[in-house]
């Protein structure tokens, strides 16, 4: 029998594709269904946030940060505020720190809920997406109640927060915590032990701890590979050292572990929010910051644990009202670099699962 000639072909996955989460383009070299090589092409969402910041005063840069990582805009607000506060050595009132922690953790849960739903949808189960967004809606309502915004909050400002929480925030937040705790059994019952789900995620896209470290992975992706590292505990910022919470880790670093990791983290975040609500002190919510705010000359790097991993902001000042340089670090950038590493010789369906569980969002990559 004459041998059949086969050849590899290239497929452009994206920039507009249902499962590339925004405008990422993956150039796939495929041998039938099998992905031989992946080459991510980035830059479709570049908005020059860092450059624009150079032409704005320090407080004016704050709203830009919402667009840096819009799924957890609180984190990106905060990392910039933290950098400037470090630079200017501003004292932040204690109540503001507590409010920040509550908002950051609520936003982490919101982000993980989106992750939970979107990952399920990428693996073909449509319904969890709606369930995830349903619970996220409650968090968004809490944010709207506090700062009037639902996506780009601009709530955490240099020196504190933009406004105090309303009276009904606390009971609603506690009700939400109770409600979400009840929903976890639903979430776990829907997918965690489903045989199809296990077949699709167990042992797929294994990320070894060595690879994870060498590519600079962080956050849930790193912890799912078994490395116990969390900036909230290992390099404490704000008032995280006051709270009692565990850092969940997994063992193998496959898609299933990365999926379970986020579910576990949500439960820990709920604990932090509860403790912060219990200990919320009275007082000021914002340090005095002049519009023509001039931090002293110098440079600073601040880093926090966002929902996706280490998020950093480097700010350099020459003593004027505008920063000389703002450089933002998004963990998705490093995680996207992992895709070609762990996505060789997988099927196209696995590629989608791996991409989804790395939880890459493009605004953080392109900035």
């Amino acid at each position: 029998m004459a041998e059949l000639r086969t050849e590899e072909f290239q497929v452009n996955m994206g920039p507009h594709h249902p499962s590339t989460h925004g405008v990422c383009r993956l150039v796939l070299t495929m041998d039938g269904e099998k992905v031989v090589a992946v080459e991510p092409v980035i830059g479709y969402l570049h908005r020059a946030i860092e450059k624009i910041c150079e032409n704005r005063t320090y407080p004016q840069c704050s709203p830009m940060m919402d667009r840096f990582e819009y799924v957890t805009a609180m984190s990106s607000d905060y990392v910039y505020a933290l950098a400037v506060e470090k630079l200017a050595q501003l004292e932040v009132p204690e109540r503001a720190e507590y409010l920040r922690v509550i908002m950051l953790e609520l936003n982490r849960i919101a982000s993980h809920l989106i992750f939970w739903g979107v990952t399920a949808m990428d693996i073909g189960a449509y319904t969890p997406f709606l369930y995830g967004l349903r619970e996220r809606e409650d968090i968004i309502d809490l944010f709207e109640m506090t700062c009037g915004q639902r996506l780009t909050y601009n709530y955490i400002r240099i020196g504190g927060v933009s406004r105090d929480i309303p009276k009904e925030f606390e009971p609603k937040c506690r009700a939400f915590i109770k409600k979400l705790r009840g929903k976890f059994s639903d979430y776990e019952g829907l997918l965690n032990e489903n045989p199809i789900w296990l077949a699709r995620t167990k042992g797929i896209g294994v990320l070894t701890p060595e690879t994870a470290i060498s590519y600079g992975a962080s956050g849930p992706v790193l912890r799912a590979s078994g490395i116990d590292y969390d900036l909230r505990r290992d390099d404490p910022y704000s008032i995280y050292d006051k709270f009692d919470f565990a850092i969940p880790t997994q063992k193998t670093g496959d898609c299933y572990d990365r999926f379970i990791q986020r579910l576990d983290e949500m439960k820990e975040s709920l604990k932090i929010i509860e403790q912060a609500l219990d200990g919320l002190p009275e007082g000021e919510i914002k340090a005095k910051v002049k519009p023509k705010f001039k931090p002293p000359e110098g440079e600073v790097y601040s880093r926090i644990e966002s929902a996706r991993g280490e998020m950093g902001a480097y700010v350099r000042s020459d003593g004027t009202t505008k920063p000389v340089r703002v450089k933002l670090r998004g963990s998705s950038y490093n995680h996207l670099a992992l895709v070609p590493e762990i996505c060789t010789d997988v099927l196209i369906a696995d590629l989608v699962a791996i991409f989804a569980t790395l939880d890459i969002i493009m605004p953080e990559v392109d900035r």
Partner: protein
Amino acid sequence: MSCTVIAFGELHGIFAWLHELPVSIGLPDSVQAVVMYAALGVTVFSVLSLFALFLVWWERKIAAHIQQRFGPMRVGWHGWYQTVMDALKLLQKEDIRIETRDKVVFFWAPVVCFVAAFLAYVVMPFGKGLIVADLNIGILYIMAVTTFTVIALLMAGWGSNNKYALLGGMRSAAQVVSYEIPMVVSLLTIIIYVGSLSMVDIVESQSGWFFNWFIFRVPFGPIAFVTYIIAAIAEANRTPFDIPEAEQELVAGYNIEYSGMKFAMFFLAEFVNMFTVSAIAATVFLGGWNGPFLPSWVWFMGKTLTVVLLLMLVRWTYPRLRVDQLMEFAWKFLVPVTFANLILAGVLKYLGYWE
């Protein structure tokens, strides 16, 4: 050629009139048969098209309620004619044809798909006497014509000259061919008890109360039913076996380049196929039109829609299998199980258990 259909339920009067018309104006007998079949074809086609539109709406509502939303609400009571409007919109849309397509194959793919979806209804017993033609090879005929769909999907995948479409077409070919076997063997398990391939005979051998239905009456009936349903979901290209059009992987699979009415034809054919596999399940396993008090066609529709509901619930609950897992499941699990089931059922029948 003679017309087998005489008693067609309440439509009897119209059909009797049509039956007499060519003769009364002095045309030959062959014309009479053509007129009759044309009339029947139009009837079945329009009823099923409407039913497909209803199923689209129903699926959207069920999905919406599973997901705690409302679904279509604006167009009529609970959006009941939303899909009619959608179909009208698709009719008006520009038919986008890419330059690099294979002209003939691209054009004929939706036609073949649409026609193949409706062919099965020639032998479908909608009720007592409500059947277009009671072929003595009924179920074999259905199995043969529903497989045409795979040719259409391959044509669409090839003719579109698009890599996603091609992957979708190849996937569907592999899938439908693999799942055809457990599907047919599951049905054979029942047919060896009936001793006839005619759909009417199959239904009539289940007359009486529900314990006469084959799912309950024969040994291994429940197993055959479950394997049939699994294979049927794969045949109808629905989650968890919807890999030919897996949105998150292949965007839309084989129908990615189709727009307007051509897309609508694929879309409606998919829902007609779902109705077909459910109707076969209702006929072969659940007693078809048999049932007390209510008219026979109500029982048939009720049973079929129950199976459709089952397929919809599965679709909106489960994740999707991967393409290799899908094949493994068919060849390593479903085919051995159905064959073992068939052999055991045959042995029991031979030994004289169960009439």
